[in-house]
């Protein structure tokens, strides 16, 4: 455990990502500490979702390495990858619940696969997770019967099924009304405080950025790299490059209008 404290939770080294021959982002270097809420921001198409998929080991980078708790997920074979993946949960943009299974079955699936819990124990855990995200009694429903916000919460419950050390969020507040989005933000902070989970969030929702982030990195489409990093409030106060300023100010304007 002591060793884990010193090693950053996630570390990207000279990471270059892209599709085919097209480079999207080049030479990224950043690290994410244990218990941190790390936010990746940037305009549309800058590759922030792409970088997230690289972090969770879905895509193979063109160059560089990604270390999860000091172990490379890039060079890992399937079994090692599987072991690493067990330690994190991912909340996808649209929830990505298996539409063929009920909510309860969705949440139970990772437990069936990885734990030796009996069916009764699994049901107990499922209900616990559902309660955590405020979806008591939704277990027997099919994903299609739930609203967008409920789906997202159910997906969060599934992401947390194995009590992961890291939670990845891909644009959690997209397609949510402000109330639900705020509730999700509170939930994230609450989880971090209670369980010490490391959170990696990709978003362009400024409210969330200011409300929950410990540290942000901003990616830019043109520069193909990180154009700013630090606490969002500090970032705004310091003299950021124009693109960063624009990104952070536009929301500021709208807020002033309130």
């Amino acid at each position, binding site marked *: 455990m002591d060793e884990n404290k010193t090693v950053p939770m996630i570390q990207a080294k000279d990471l270059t990502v892209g*599709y085919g021959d097209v480079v999207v982002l080049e030479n990224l270097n950043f690290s994410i500490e244990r218990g941190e809420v790390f936010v990746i921001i940037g305009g549309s198409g800058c590759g922030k979702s792409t970088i997230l998929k690289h972090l969770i080991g879905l895509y193979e980078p063109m160059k560089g390495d990604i270390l999860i708790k000091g172990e490379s997920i890039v060079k890992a074979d399937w079994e090692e990858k599987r072991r690493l993946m067990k330690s994190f949960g991912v909340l996808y943009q649209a929830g990505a619940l298996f539409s063929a299974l009920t909510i309860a079955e969705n949440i139970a699936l990772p437990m069936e696969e990885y734990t030796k819990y009996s069916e009764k124990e699994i049901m107990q855990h499922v209900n616990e997770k559902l309660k955590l995200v405020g979806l008591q009694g939704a277990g027997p429903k099919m994903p299609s019967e739930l609203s967008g916000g409920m789906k997202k919460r159910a997906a969060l419950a599934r992401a947390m099924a194995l009590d992961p050390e890291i939670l990845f969020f891909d644009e959690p507040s997209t397609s949510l009304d402000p109330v639900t989005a705020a509730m999700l933000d509170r939930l994230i902070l609450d989880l971090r405080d209670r369980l010490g989970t490391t959170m990696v969030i990709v978003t362009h929702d400024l409210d969330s950025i200011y409300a929950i982030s410990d540290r942000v990195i901003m990616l830019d489409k043109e520069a193909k790299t990180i154009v700013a990093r630090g606490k969002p409030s500090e970032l705004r106060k310091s003299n950021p490059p124009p693109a960063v300023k624009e990104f952070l100010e536009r929301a500021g304007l709208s807020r002033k209008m309130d």
Partner: protein
Amino acid sequence: MSISLFMSENKDKVGENGASGKFELHEPQIRPAVEYVGETSIHLWKDSINILAIIGEIAEAVWYAMKNPRKVRWRETLYYMDVCGADALPISCMICFLMGLILGFQASLQMHKFGTDLYVADLVGLSVVKELGPMMVAMICAGRAGSAFAAEISTMKVSEEIDAMVTMGFQPSRFLIIPKLLALVMVMPVLTIFGNVVGIIGGMTVGVYSLGIPIITYFNRTALIVTPRFFTEGLIKSAVFAVLIAAVGCLRGFEAKNDTHGVGAAATSAVVSGIFLVIIADTLMTYLFSRF
């Protein structure tokens, strides 16, 4: 291994999109035409590699499933057996019956000229059992099951369910392909049995009502000509077709573009390539069976 296969495929698609913008075919120039041929050849080559890769992956998944039968998602398998098998029975029987009827009718017109009416039984029996039964059932299953598999998997891809599956530590091939493949391999030969019998009955209907061959004569002739070997050959063909249809359906689903249009394209492509592969495989197997 599986992840990289599917994901790198995804990347290729995006790259191709960027490249294909260059083509403007309204100018009658040789260069674009040549480039188009080149592009198509590369695509075809990649496609063949992908099909081989997915067959390899399926083989691995099947091997894993045989070693760990308890890990197979039997509930899904049964579901697909029901949907692709039992539900396809009426349409398969109907098409095979009509096929036998048409074949018998066409044959009777020609055979009657030579006074070889009874040979209608040979023609219908052999063509249905060796070729048309397995083939018709394969066509129906390519249309019903192959497209459904492709649409299902591509939809799952669009909604990131596949990604979720991978990050939850499930191999999509084991999780998604095996139940579909197993189900189709188990039900298509059964459908073919029905199709064969019904097809022969179709030919018999023509023989008995149009040519006036006594039903028992027609039956005996068919039983004499159609040997258990031929019947089994047809069923083996059918099982191979099932593997191809399921595999290509899943492959097209996995390589679909990440949008709603991609789902439709994947379903169409699954049917077209499914039928194409079935015919190629049929040619090969017909040749092989004639050798041994």
